[in-house]
Structures are given as C-alpha cells and as structure tokens.
C-alpha cells in the first residue's frame, strides 16, 4: 500500500449469486482526495461504496485501510425507513455512536454537538420534528449533520443530491468542500457530470470494471470515448 493512500483495493470482485456487481477493481484513494464515482445505473457504484464502508464483503480481492477506522457512510436516502418515530435531533445524535455505543444514550456533549451540526446545515428549527415530516432535502441535510458528528477521516456519499433542490445542493456541496479543505478523504457517487467537472478533482468511471480512474478531465474523456 502506497504511503499516501487512505484505502487501497486489490482486485476486488463482488458477486450477488451469478450476477457480477463489481469485477477486478484495483487502485487507491489518496488521503485528502475528493473523488467522484460515475457510471450508468447498475454499474456497481453503490456496491463499491459498500465495500469501502465495510458493509459489503468482497467475493474475492482485498481492501487495505491505512488506519483502523470506519469511514462515515451515507447510503442512498431510500435505504432509510422514515416511518420510524424518530426526531431529527435523535437521528443526528446517532453520529456520536462511537462515543456512547450500543448500550447508552447520547450524553449532553453529543446532544449539543448535534444541535450545532443541525445549525451548520440549516436545520436548527427542525430538531424536534419527526424525520417522516421532513422533505427529501431536509432529510439529506439531517444525514449530513449526522456525518459531521461522526467526524471520520474518510467520508462516503451515495448519490447525496438525488431529488434535492438547488439550495440544498449548494449547502451540501459547501460541506463537502469544507471536508476536503480539512484534508478528509471524500468519495461521492454522482450522476451529474457537470457537477463532477466543476467540483471534483478526481473521478472513477465504473461499468462493473474500472473504465478510468484519475484526474476528472481525462477520466471523463475515457467515458465519452
């Protein structure tokens, strides 16, 4: 594993039964890099993020981490059941899980940090609302606030701007740039190639296999070809 790599994949393949979701992916995400993962639907983007997050085990190949730390992972919003009677404050406070663990309630410090994170993403007035009462954009902001509390050195975002209004995209992009400036490694699955060109220095193009991986301009040129 190279010295500046935060996470390295070596010939990673994921199969779901007979179906191959991801095949022979090798490469490294450098520490502090900001990478977009693009590709058509069903090309293994979410699977790749799951592998990096540790929620999906590769069928073959290995994932090497620079430090023994779990990345903060935001899956697609549809994977969350918003019918559960949970307030925004409680959802955000879960970001402090590492501190309070499975058996204890969040302490005062975590609750205060949750309120501060909600303010950062513009949700101060919504702390006591149920998550089921939020719009998609507000829920995404709440999940970003949870990521803030997780305070991880690597952040994985799966289609964070899907069904989200322009104003919310601006707030979330601002947060991603902030994480990048702080030197955190950020990997984002996206479909908006214009956004990728303007905001993301590096891009990984997937079609089950790795089509291109490197500086955005050259990677997207490979996609067009």
């Amino acid at each position, binding site marked *: 594993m190279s010295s500046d790599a935060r996470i390295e994949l070596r010939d990673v393949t994921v199969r779901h*039964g007979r179906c191959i979701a991801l095949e022979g992916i090798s490469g490294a995400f450098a520490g502090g890099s900001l990478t977009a993962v693009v590709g058509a639907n069903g090309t293994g983007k979410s699977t790749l993020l799951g592998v990096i*997050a*540790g*929620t999906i085990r590769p069928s073959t190949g290995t994932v090497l981490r620079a430090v023994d730390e*779990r*990345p*903060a*992972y935001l*899956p697609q919003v549809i*994977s*969350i*059941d*918003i*019918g*559960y*009677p*949970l*307030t925004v404050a409680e959802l955000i406070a*879960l970001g402090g*899980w*590492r501190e309070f663990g*499975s*058996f*204890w*309630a969040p302490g005062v410090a975590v609750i205060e940090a949750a309120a501060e994170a909600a303010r950062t993403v513009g949700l101060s007035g919504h702390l006591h609302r149920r998550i089921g009462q939020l719009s998609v954009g507000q829920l995404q902001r709440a999940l970003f606030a949870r990521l803030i509390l*997780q305070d991880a050195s690597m952040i994985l975002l799966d289609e964070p701007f899907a069904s989200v209004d322009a104003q919310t995209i601006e707030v979330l992009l601002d947060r991603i740039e902030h994480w990048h400036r702080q030197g955190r490694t950020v990997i984002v699955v996206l479909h908006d190639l214009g956004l990728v060109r303007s905001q993301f220095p590096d891009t990984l193009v997937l079609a089950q296999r790795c089509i291109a991986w490197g500086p955005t301009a050259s990677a997207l040129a490979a996609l067009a070809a």
Partner: protein
Amino acid sequence: MTPYALVLAPFETLDFMRTALVACLALALSNGVVGTLLVLRRMSMDADVLGHAVMPGAAIGFLFGGPSPTWLSVGGLVSGLAVGMLADLMAQGRGRDDSGLVAFYLLALSFGVVLVTWRGSNIDVVRVLFGTVLSIDHRSLLQIAAATTAILLLVAALYRPLAVASFDPVFLRAVGARVPYRTIFTSLVVLALVSSFQAFGTLLAIGPMLLPAAAAQCWGFGAAGSMALASAFGLLASIAGLLISYHANLPSGPAIILAAGCLLTASMVITRIIHRASATIGSSA
C-alpha cells in the same frame, strides 16, 4: 347487575380468573414491547409465520410429554428458534419470498395438527391451536413471568441498536456493529410467542402482540410511548376479554383478541377524526 358483580367479583372469587389476569398482565408487558418493535420494523407477517413455526415443535413436545405446558413450550421454543434462524439466513441471501412464507405457514400448521391428532384427541388439537388462558397454573405463570422479565431486560439493554437496525441497518453495519441484532430480535419474538402460546394457542398467539401495538401506533407517540400504550391496551383487552368470556360463557382467548380488535378499530376511527378536525382548524386559521 352491580358494577362489583360485573367487574370485580369474578377476579375476587375465582382463583383461575386471578391467575389468568396475572398471566395476561405479564403477557401484555412483553407483547406491548415486542409488538411495537414488530410493527415499527414492518415484520407483522414474519411474526405470524413464526407463530406457526412454534406448532410442529409444540406438537413434538406433546408427543413426548402429553399436554404438559413445559414440554409444549420447550418444543415450541426449539422449533421457533430454528425456523427464525433459517429465515434470517434466507433473508440475507435474497429478497422476501411471500409464497415461501405462506407455504411454510400451511405446512407447519398441517404437520403440527397431524402430530397432535396422532397421539391425542380433538380437544388437544383445539387446545394447541387456540390455547386455554383459564387453565394456566402457577408453574405456567412462573414460566410466563420469567420470559417477560427476560424480554423486558433484553429490550431495555439493546433498545438502541434494535431500533437503529429497524430504520437504518446500513448505518449500524457501517459503524461496525457486528452483533446479529436481527437474529436477537427474532429470538425475542419467538420467546414472546412461546410464552403466549399456552394462553392463546399457535393460531392466536400473534394477536395480543400485534393488535394492541397496531392500536397504539395510531396515536403517533414515540417508540417508548407506543410500547407503554400497547401494554396498557393489551391489559385492557385482557380484562375486557376475560370478563366477556366469564359472563357470556365464551372462549377466553378469542374474546381477548376480539376486545383488542375493538381497541384497534376505535383507535383508528378516533385518531382519524382528530386528524381531520385539526386539519380543518389549521386550514381555517
């Protein structure tokens, strides 16, 4: 008939009514908690199938020990846990298969009935299918109390991960929680079903778990509030069902389930009226 003769006298004068009431109180506590989590996790159908998974084991227990509550419970617990684990493994491998669940439900029920009829009588079959809450003895009461205590302690200790596993399981895995919470929850459901089994039988055991929880859910409280309300509804339905059963000479288990059904219907109607009224006030303000 005086209110005393209607409500208090049956419990004051008859030992089996008091024992049944205490058993129902214990079951209402555990069922309220587990039932609320079931409804929130949208696992009602799975729990119904698990209820029938208890049947073959209970029937094998019946073959060994006759209509002994201990043998029936041990057999039911073993087969319920085995099927629960199997279902969890299948759920990890592929999507939900409703036809498989229904097939299992029918086969488990038929197999159990055949086994009990083979060595027992039709009365035994009815007892296994519908339970006999009024014949609960002190030993069974202790079993129910022990199961309720274990369930309440486990849910109190594991509430947070059980809750997160139900609405955002990916987050739980991503923060490194490797404990199989789904399997733990399935085991809790099986334990609750087995402890309800003698009172309500394999066909109805899911009723006092789901109906009060579904009724409590209508009122829109948080998870803890819904659990408390579901337990209160469960107790209320039990008292009403026992009294109806006593005065009208009806089977007690179905009477309790029907009372719980009335509470669910009333909750749905009243909360709908309240929501409409508040929406009207809100739009005119």
